[in-house]
């Protein structure tokens, strides 16, 4: 069981998730401090570690549109968020998978801040509203990267295979 801590609408851009003015900071260990920097309260709660790991951010369509900056995925991965959206923008989704950020495509999701969710591979159950929502599985090719623990270990395996 996990809780929704932030609810967002459609077209949340990477400029909102990780504003361009912090792009000089690149290392995944350092990016979480600037997460949603312009949502000042939320940013403060993350920095103060007021939010439990595996908490959920719920969004509408096209989450992560815009810039390819990987900081937008790493800043969410650091505090161990789960992102459930109706749909994701391509580069953001790929970055998330590469870094092992848990992104769930759930085209009909309805949930508000404070709602309790139960998430499985095939569905999201909103315990607060009692409603059930189907999860779209990731394409197999992407699942292979997740299973390897992210793109770095996956590439490492491939590299060792080719050099043998």
């Amino acid at each position: 069981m996990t809780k929704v801590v932030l609810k967002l609408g459609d077209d949340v851009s990477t400029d909102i998730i990780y504003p361009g003015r912090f792009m000089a900071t690149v290392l995944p260990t350092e990016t979480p401090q600037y997460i949603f920097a312009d949502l000042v309260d939320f940013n403060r709660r993350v920095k103060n570690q007021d939010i439990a790991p595996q908490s959920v951010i719920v969004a509408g369509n096209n989450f992560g549109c815009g810039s390819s900056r990987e900081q937008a995925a790493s800043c969410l991965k650091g505090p161990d968020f789960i992102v459930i959206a109706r749909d994701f923008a391509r580069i953001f989704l790929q970055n998330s998978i590469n870094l092992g950020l848990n992104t769930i495509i759930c085209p009909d999701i309805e949930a508000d801040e404070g709602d309790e969710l139960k998430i499985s591979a095939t569905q999201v159950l909103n315990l607060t509203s009692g409603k059930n929502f189907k999860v779209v599985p990731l394409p197999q090719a992407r699942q292979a990267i997740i299973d390897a623990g992210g793109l770095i270990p996956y590439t490492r395996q491939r590299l060792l295979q080719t050099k043998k």
Partner: protein
Amino acid sequence: MGMTLVEKILARATGQPAVKAGDVVEPHVDLAMSHENAALVLNQFQEIYQGTGLEARVWDPDRIAIIFDHRVPAESSKTATNQKKVRDFVSKQGIGKFHDIRGDEGGICHQILPENGYVRPGAVVVGTDSHTTSHGALGAFAFGIGATEMASVWALGRVLNVEVPGTIKVEVHGDFHPYVLPKDLILYLIGKISAQGANFKVIEFHGPAIKKISTSGRLTICNMSVEAGATAGIVPGDAETVRYLNDDAGVKGRIEILQPDAEAIYDRVIQIDASAMDPQVACPHTVDNVKPVQEVVGKQVNQIVIGSCTNGRLDDIRIAAQILEGKKVARNVRMLVFPASARIYRQALQDGYLLSLMNAGAVVMNSGCGPCLGVHQGALADGDVALATTNRNFKGRMGNPAAEVFLCSPAVAAASALTGKITDPRKGA
């Protein structure tokens, strides 16, 4: 079965007779581009090699391009230090296509690649920048990836697990009116299909009106295809592509052109009549909030920006200079111009365009990303309204979430600079 242009390119890059949308492939990469974020790429690259006992060497230093553009000259010691790390890496690995902060060969990555002939028709190009879609203007399959994915490309020379995208065909007929520019076409299309209308798809541009657009204008169109969510935009190569590569980019020898098959299968076909099109403006805070200029004329603006990888080329600067020649930028407006590359800057200097713009009151800045992404220069005040030829108007994009950004062509921007209000260039300022 016929193939779309991107299916053909991916078949070739994977050594298969044919591929189709939905297949998963691992294409060889012809060119891998990064900018300052190479600092993160090299961090991830070194991590890949940890514990392997292998020496961390890039697969092919001649196929890697690194261009400093996002924060040049460095705005902070942090950026400067990152740039320094990248410089060291470049010299250690012998990376050939490196463009440092220079007044002879520097500029924005999406301008540097085409103008130096680094991109060819039929190539697979990846870049750690979402506007890598630009290079589809030369008939390449070019798409944006993240830093970790680039690290993987540096190690293996291929992109792993690429799903062959479906393609939307856009056919443009008719003649553009004067002061209706390629920027207006792409804004119109994004408005029509929405910011996610082409998610995970390629947009292939066809039709007599596209044939008449120069490579510069095609770069504008492909650049902003990503604002409709597209993986890539692509214009099949033609005589103009060959002309550009030979004459402007100095490429010697034969240039091979790939074409989609006549029986290619498209997800969707969209017809556009260019002759019916007005200049367009994208209103805050999404790029698909597009209106014909007449619906927003009169809106007061505080800052006009002409430049970026979208519209910072010579023809963009020329049209602005022609509109402003002998006139003055309105007193209540700041006008910033930043040419997309040092080469364009020098040409605009020689041709007198920059002098016309400066005499009118514009500030000409060094080439680079400048105010486009709001980290460096030209930040907006609370409540400010900017009108820019750049490609994004998201909240906070120009450095201040309490400001508004409108997007338009260089003609609309220049005409509006004279009045301090959004102005239809067809009506004169």
